[in-house]
C-alpha cells in the first residue's frame, strides 16, 4: 500500500498485452493457418455445392456455415494464443474434463446419424463431435503430468498420463472410432518421446511392432490379404479411393479449371475426407503442393521453435499439439494418395465441419500460445553455465 501511494512500484511491470502478443507470436505459422482456412473456404465453394443441392439447400449454404464457424474458430484461436501457458493449461485441463464427461455420456444421449458409430451430440442447428475437442485438452493434460514428473518429488506423471491415455483410447474404440483412438495414442507417444522415453523401450516397441507385423502377415491369411490388397497397384475404380486417385490424375499439374471438376459429384465425402481430391482435380498439383507446404511450415516451424524452449510443459504441450495437427493432415492426404490404408480423418481447417474447424482452431491457438517467443537464457547457454 505504501509503495503504491509513494510510487516506488512501477504502474506497469510489462508492456501491453497486444503489442507483446504481436511481437512474440509465430507470425509465419499463424499466417499459414489463416491461408489454410482461406483455401478451405475456396474449396468449399466447389466441393460443398453438390451436397447442398442433394439436400435441397441453396448452393453456398455450407460455405456460409463454414465461414461462420470458421470465424468463431479464428477468434478462438487468436484468443487462446494470447493466453499465457499457465492459463492455457488451466483452460485445457478444464476443457479435457468437459470433453471427457461428454464422451462418457455419448452412449446415452449421443446420435450416430445412421453411420453406425455413436460420435455426435445433435443440437438441432449443429452437431458436435466431442472427441475432436478432447484431443487438444488431452495433449495439455498429458504434457502437464509429464512435465510435473520432472520435478524432484513430483507426481508419477508418466504412469498417470499413460493410464488416462488408455482410458480415452478405450472410450474411443468403443464408439467405435479407431482413427481418433490411434491419433490420441500417437499424441501420447510423441509427448512421451520428447519427454525422454528410454531408447531401449523405443527399440523394444519398434521391434515388437515390426516382428508382430511380419508374424501376422506370415500366419494370418486374412491380414496378409488386407495388406496385399492395400499394396496392390490395382484398385477397384468404383470405390471412393478409386475416384480420388482418378481425380488427382485428371487434375494433372494445373487442374481442370475452377468449377469444372467431376469428382465432387460422385464422392459422398468430397467436402470432408476427400477434399484434397477436389483441390487436386480443380486446381491441380500446384494447390496441393501449396497446401502440403503450409502444413509442413506450421509443424516444422513450431517444432524448431520448441527446441529452444526451456520450460518442459510448454515444450511437451507444443510438441503434442503440433504433431496431432500435422499427423491428422498427413493421414488425410496419405489416404487420398494411397500411402495409407483408408481411414476417415478430416483435413484441419480445410475440410468442411463445424466441430472440426473449431477444434482445429483450439489446437492451433494453444500451439501458437506455446510457440511464442520467451526469454530462454540464451546468454547463459552461450557461456555454458546456464546462469549458475
Amino acid at each position, binding site marked *: 500500500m505504501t509503495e503504491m501511494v509513494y510510487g516506488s512500484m512501477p504502474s506497469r511491470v510489462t508492456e501491453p498485452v497486444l503489442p507483446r502478443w504481436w511481437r512474440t507470436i509465430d507470425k509465419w505459422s499463424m499466417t499459414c493457418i489463416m491461408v489454410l482456412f482461406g483455401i478451405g473456404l475456396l474449396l468449399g465453394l466447389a466441393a460443398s455445392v453438390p451436397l447442398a443441392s442433394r439436400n435441397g439447400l441453396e448452393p453456398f449454404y455450407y460455405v456460409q456455415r463454414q465461414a461462420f464457424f470458421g470465424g468463431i474458430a479464428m477468434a478462438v484461436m487468436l484468443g487462446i494464443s494470447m493466453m499465457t501457458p499457465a492459463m492455457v493449461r488451466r483452460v485445457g485441463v478444464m476443457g479435457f474434463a468437459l470433453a471427457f464427461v461428454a464422451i462418457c455420456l455419448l452412449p446415452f444421449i449421443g446420435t450416430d446419424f445412421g453411420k453406425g458409430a455413436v460420435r455426435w451430440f445433435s443440437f438441432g442447428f449443429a452437431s458436435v463431435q466431442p472427441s475432436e475437442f478432447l484431443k487438444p485438452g488431452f495433449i495439455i493434460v498429458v504434457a502437464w503430468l509429464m512435465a510435473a514428473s*520432472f*520435478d*524432484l518429488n513430483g507426481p508419477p506423471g508418466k504412469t498417470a498420463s499413460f493410464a488416462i491415455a488408455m482410458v480415452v483410447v478405450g472410450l474411443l474404440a468403443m464408439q467405435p472410432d479407431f482413427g481418433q483412438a490411434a491419433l490420441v495414442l500417437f499424441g501420447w507417444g*510423441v509427448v512421451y*518421446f*520428447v*519427454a*525422454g522415453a528410454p531408447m531401449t523401450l523405443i527399440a523394444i516397441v519398434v521391434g515388437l511392432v515390426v516382428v508382430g507385423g511380419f508374424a501376422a502377415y506370415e500366419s494370418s491369411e486374412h491380414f496378409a490379404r488386407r495388406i496385399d490388397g492395400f499394396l496392390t497397384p*490395382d484398385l*477397384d*475404380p*468404383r470405390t471412393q479411393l*478409386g*475416384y480420388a*486417385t*482418378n481425380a*488427382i*490424375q*485428371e*487434375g*494433372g*499439374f494445373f487442374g481442370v479449371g475452377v468449377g469444372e471438376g467431376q469428382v465432387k459429384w460422385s464422392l459422398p465425402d468430397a467436402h470432408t475426407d476427400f477434399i484434397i481430391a477436389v483441390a*487436386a482435380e480443380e486446381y*491441380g*498439383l500446384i494447390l*496441393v*503442393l501449396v497446401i*502440403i*507446404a503450409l*502444413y*509442413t511450415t506450421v*509443424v*516444422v516451424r513450431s*517444432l*524448431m521453435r*520448441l*527446441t*529452444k*524452449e*526451456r*520450460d*518442459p510443459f510448454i*515444450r511437451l504441450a507444443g*510438441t503434442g499439439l503440433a*504433431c496431432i495437427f*500435422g499427423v491428422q493432415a*498427413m493421414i488425410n*492426404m*496419405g489416404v487420398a*494418395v*494411397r*500411402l495409407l490404408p483408408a481411414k476417415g480423418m478430416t483435413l484441419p481447417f480445410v475440410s468442411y465441419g463445424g466441430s472440426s474447424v473449431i477444434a482445429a482452431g483450439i489446437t492451433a491457438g494453444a500451439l501458437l500460445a506455446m510457440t511464442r517467443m520467451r526469454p530462454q537464457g540464451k546468454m547463459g547457454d552461450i557461456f555454458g553455465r*546456464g*546462469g*549458475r
Partner: protein
Amino acid sequence: MIRTPLRPLARILSARQKGENPDTIERENLRLRHEEIRDRGRARAEVRLLFLSLGFLAAFSTIGARMGLLAATEPVEPRSAAAGAQILATRADITDRNGRILATNMQTYALYAQPRDMVDPGRVARELAKIFPEIDPVAMERRLTDGRTFLWIRRVMSPEQMQRVHEIGDPGLLFGPREMRLYPNGQLAAHVLGGASFGAEGVSSAEVIGTAGIEKALDARLRDPAQAGTPLELSLDLTLQAAVEEILGTGMTMLNAKGAAAILMDVKTGEILSLASLPAFDPNDRPNPLVKGDPGDSPLFNRAVQGVYELGSTFKIFTVANAMNLGLVSPETMVDANAPRRWGKFTIKEFQNKNYGPLLSVENVIVKSSNVGTANIALMVGAERQAAFFQSLGFFDPTVIELVEAPGAKPIVPKRWPDITTITTSYGHGISASPMHLAVAYAAIANGGVKVTPTLLHGGVAQNGPRVMTAETAAASVRMLRGVVEHGTATLGDVPGYQVAGKTGTAEKPSRTGGYDEDKVVNTFASLFPADDPKYVLVVTLDEPVETSGSEPRRTAGWTAVPVAGEIIRRAAPLLGLRPVVEPPPVDGLTAVSN
C-alpha cells in the same frame, strides 16, 4: 554417486550464526537443481524434436511426391472399358500326347450387384431366384437392401442364364468377365487333371488356380504368362485312357469291387499312357472332400497314386530276381517248399493250405505262387540285402510323378527287418505301396533292369536311370512271369499274339480291429507285354472284388484282376501299335507247286 545435500551443514550453520533463514538456502539449491534438470531435458528434447521435424518433413515430402507422381500419370476411365484386354487366356491348355484337349479355358461371366444403383431390389431378388434355383428370394432381398454397396451373386453362369439376367433390366446388376477352366472330356483322366477354382477375384478378372492333380502340381507352369500359348502336353493318350476307364469300370461293376485303379506305362521312357482310378468324379464340378469317414472312399481319392496297399504276391518276383541277381539261385534251382513252414511262433501256409513241396524249382515258385518257397529264398538273401533291393526299386519313398497327391503317399515300410519281416515282405505282406510304385518296379524288370522315373509329361526319351539288376536277371524274370500267364495263376490274362507276362497278387486287407479280413481283399495283377521285348507295364488293382459266377465266391486275383487286365491289353495293344505275333499257318494246308 555422491549425493549433494540440499541443506549443506556448513552453510546452514553459518546462516544461523548470521541470523538468516536457513530455508532460503534449501530453496536456492532446489531451484538450481531443477534448472539443471531442465537444461538436461532440453538438450535431450532438442535432438528428439529435430528428429520429429525431419520425420514430418520426410512424410509430407513423400505425400507431395506421390501426389506429383499421380498427377503426372494418365488417368484411366473409372469403369475400365478395356477390361477385356486384361482377360487373357492366362492359363495354358492341357492336351494329351496327340494334342487332343484335356483342359482349356472358356469365357464366361460372373454376376455381381451394386445395390445402391438398384431400382427395385425386391423384384430383382424374385427374378434371380427364378433363374438360379439355389437363390432364396427372401434372403437375397435382405442382402440387397442391408446397405452394402457390393455383392457377388454368381461366380459363373451359362449364356442363357446371362441373357435372362439381362432381361431383368436392372442397372444394379452387372457382369464381370471370367476365364473358366473347362474339362471337355468330363470324368476322363479326372484324377490326373484334378481341377481348378478361382483364386483372387476382382470385378474384371479372376485368377484360376489349380486345386488338385497336375493342375496344382504344375500350377506355376500353367499360369506362366510366357508359356500361356504353349499347351502342356501330357503323356496320356486320350483313346487309351477312355478304353482303360471303360473296361476298368465294367470290370469293377461285374466283380462288385468298391474301387479300381489301372496304370499303363512305357517301360523305357517312364511315360504314363493311362492312369485311371475309379470311382471317378467330374473335374468341372469337383465334389467336396468327405468330412467324415475314410478319405479313401471319396471319389477324389486317387487309388493309383495315393492308395497304399499291401500288394501281395506281386512282390515274389522281386525276391526271386534279387536272389538271381546275387547269384544265389537260377530258375532251375530247387528250393525247399514244404508247407506249412514254421518260423518261431509263426506258420507260413500256402493258398488253400496246399503243399507244393518238398522241393520246387525257383521258376515254379513264381508260377505256382508258393509262399514257402519265396520265404526260403528270402532267408537265403537276408534282411539287409532284401531291404536294399526294395529301396533301389523305389519302395521306400513316395513316387515323384507330377501330381500334387504323390508326395503325400508315402509307402508303409517296416521299421526293423527281423527274419519274420524278411519272410512276409518277400511275398508282399507287411510292406505297403501304391500301384504306381509297383508299376515302376515292374518297369525295371521289363526294360532290362533299369529303374525309370514315372512321368505324366510327353516327350520322354529312354531313361538311363540306375541299374537295379542285370539284364540277364531281368530277362529270366520276364520268362518266369510269362510262365505265370501261360500255365500258372494268370492264365485268364493271356491275350493271343501279345505274350502277356505278369504276376498276380491277392492281399487280405488289414481290418480295423487288427489282423486281416478274410473276405476283403485287394487284388492286383502286374503285367508286362509283349514278353519277348517288353514295351509296356500294366498294373490293375481291384479293391474288394468278388467273382460270383462259380459255386462259391472267388476272391483271388487270377479270377478278378487278371481277366480285367487281359481285356485292357486286348483293347490297348492295337491302339499302342503293337503287332500281334501270329502263328504261321499250318504247313499241311499248302500244296507244293513246282513249275
